[in-house]
C-alpha cells in the first residue's frame, strides 16, 4: 500500500510541480486548477511508466483524484 502511495506521489510531483507534497492526498481535478484533461493524460502516462503497467485510459477516466487513483491502482 505504501509502495503505491509513494510511487503515485512521485508521479504527482512531476505532473504538478507547483503543488505542495502535503496536498497530494487531498488533491483532485475539482480543487486543482492545473488538473485538466491534458494533465490527466500526462499523469496517467507517468503512472503507467512508474508502475510498469498498461493503463486503460477509458477505465481510469473517472479517477480524477489522488485517492481514486490510489484505490484503482491497488485493485489492479
Amino acid at each position, binding site marked *: 500500500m505504501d509502495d503505491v502511495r509513494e510511487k503515485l506521489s*512521485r*508521479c504527482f510531483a*512531476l*505532473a504538478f*510541480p507547483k503543488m505542495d507534497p502535503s496536498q497530494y492526498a487531498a488533491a483532485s481535478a475539482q480543487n486543482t486548477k492545473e488538473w485538466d*484533461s*491534458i494533465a490527466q*493524460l*500526462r499523469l496517467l*502516462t*507517468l503512472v503507467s*511508466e*512508474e508502475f510498469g503497467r498498461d493503463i*486503460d*485510459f*477509458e477505465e481510469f477516466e473517472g479517477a480524477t483524484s489522488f485517492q481514486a487513483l490510489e484505490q484503482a491502482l491497488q485493485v489492479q
Partner: protein
Amino acid sequence: MRLAEAFQIIGQSSDPAKVKIHLLLGITPLHLETFTQARLMQHFQGAGVDIATGLYGDLEGNVRRACDETAHSAIVVIEWSDIDQRLGIRSSAGWRAETLNDIVNQAEAKCRRLASQLHELATRMPVIVAGPTLTLPPMTYQPPSEESDFELRLKLALAQFLLRAANHHAIRLISDTQLALTSPIEGRHDVNLDLHAGFPYTLKHADALAGLFVQSLFPPAPKKGIITDLDQTLWRGILGDVGVEGINWALEGKSQGHALYQQLLASLADSGVLVAVASKNDPGIVEEAFRRPDILLQSSSVFPMEVGWGVKSEAVGRILQTWNIGPDSVVFVDDSPMELAEVGEKYPAVECLRFPSDNPGAIVDLLWRLRTCFGKREILEEDRLRLASIRNFAEHRSEEGSEVSADFLSRIEGKVTLESAGSDQRAFELVNKTNQFNLNGVRYSEAEWKTLAQRPGAFLATVSYEDRFGPLGRIAVLGGYCTDDACHVDVWVMSCRAFSRHIEFQAIRQLFSKTSAAEIRFRFKSTERNGPLKSFFAHFELNGSTAEGELVLRAEDFGRLCPRLFHQVNDKWMMSEKN
C-alpha cells in the same frame, strides 16, 4: 528518455526562455511537446525553452499563424491524418473505392498547399519537417503484403511534396531511415492514446522524434579533416610484406570493406574534407601503391602524405600544422589500438576510430560514423578549393622557409575582394565554425544572424582572396554597425587557411577607408582558441589578453603600425548611406 525524466528536466529550470520554437502539428502535442522541450533544455544545459503549439486538427492554420510570429525556428510534424482526416483511425468516412480515389485527389491538392505554406514559413525562420511516420490504416482490399495503387499514389504525392520542400535551403527533413534506427516502425503507433486523445505516438517514438528535432536544429560542427592509416585500413595487407600487387580492396579479395572505405574517403575529399595519410611505411612503395589503376582514393585527393618510420602522433602533428586546423576538427582512423592510443594520448581532442579490418559489419558502422562526423548540408565553392589552396601554399612555403616575408607577399599577386554578405550562407557557416581567428567566439542561430543585419547602421561583408597559387574563396567575414562617433565590430572571423597573407590587415584598412571612422571598437572576448586574433591586436599594441571587453583601434595607430600591403583590392562592398 523516459517521460518522468523529461518532466524532471523541465521542472528543474527556472531560467527565462532562451529560445522560442514553434511545434506545429495537427495531432495533440502532448508527450511530443514534453520530450521536445526537455531535449532542447538538455541541449541548452537547463536553460528555459518556450514551445508554441497551435490548434488540434488545423496543421495548415497553425503553419499560417506561425508565419506572423517570430521564433528561433519551427518544427512541422505531418501525419497522414493531416493530409486527409480519412487517413487516420479517428475517422470513419468509409474506405470504399470511390472514397480512396477522392482521398488521393484531395491529398495531392493538400500537399501542394502545404508546400507553399512551408516555403512561406521558411522565409521567416528555419523549418524542420517530419513527414508521416506512421503506417496507413488497412484501407484497401489488396493484401497487405503487396503495394496497392492507392498507397503508391499517396506516397508519390507525399514524395513530390517533400522534394519540393527540401529544395528550400531553410527547410530540413527528418530522415525516416535514421528515425527507424531508434524507433522501429512497428513500435510507433499508440492506438489507444490516438483514439482516446488524438495523440498517436508511443512514448518511445515521441522521444526519438524529439531527439532528431534537436539534432537537426543544432547539428554539431562538422569535422574538417581525416587522417588515415594505410595497411589493414585503406587496404588489406601489409604493403612492406606483400608488395604493391599483394594488397587488395575488392569483393574477390574478401576485402570489399576497404574498397567502401576508399570510396567514402574519395567522396569526403570531393565535399571539401581534408584527407591525409599517416603510415609507417616506405614512401617509395606507398607512392607506387597509389599509382595502381584500380585504387579508388586517388593520391591527388590526399595531402599531406606522412609516410615514414617515426612516431604516429608526430606525423599527426605535422599534418595538423600543414592544415592549420585544431585537433578537435580531426578524425584519425587506424586498425591498431596501440597507434590509436598513442595519438589519442598526445592529442586528446582528435577523434580516434579503429578500422575493424576483419569485421565487414563493423566497417559499415564505421562508415556511418564518419558520415555523421563530416555531414554537411551543402557543398560550397570554398569546399572545392580547400585542398588545392592548402597544397599550393604549403609546398611554396616549404620552398621559402617557415616565415612569410614581405618580399614573398609582394610576389604572390594577392587579390582581396570585399562584398556585402547579404544572405550569403557561407558567411553564416564561417562565423559559426571558425575558432582561431574569431573576435569573440559567439555562435549565431539563423534567426539571430538575420537580426544582426537589421540593426541601425549595420554592415556585414565577406572577404574573398586569391593569389597565384589559386583562389581561397570567401575566407573572412566582418560585421558590425556604425554610430556617429565610431565603427563597432562584433563579428570578425577568418579561415585559418588564409593566415600569413595579411588579409586581416587589408580588411581593416578597407573598413577604415569606407567608414572614415576615427576609430574601430572591437567587441572582443578571449577564448581558448583565438590566439591568432590576439596576435593581430598585439601588433597594434592592444591588450588582446583582456578576457572580455572593447578594444579600440584608432585610425592613426593603424596607419602607423600596419605592415606594407601588396594586395590588389576589388571593392564590391556597398555600404548603406547612413554609414
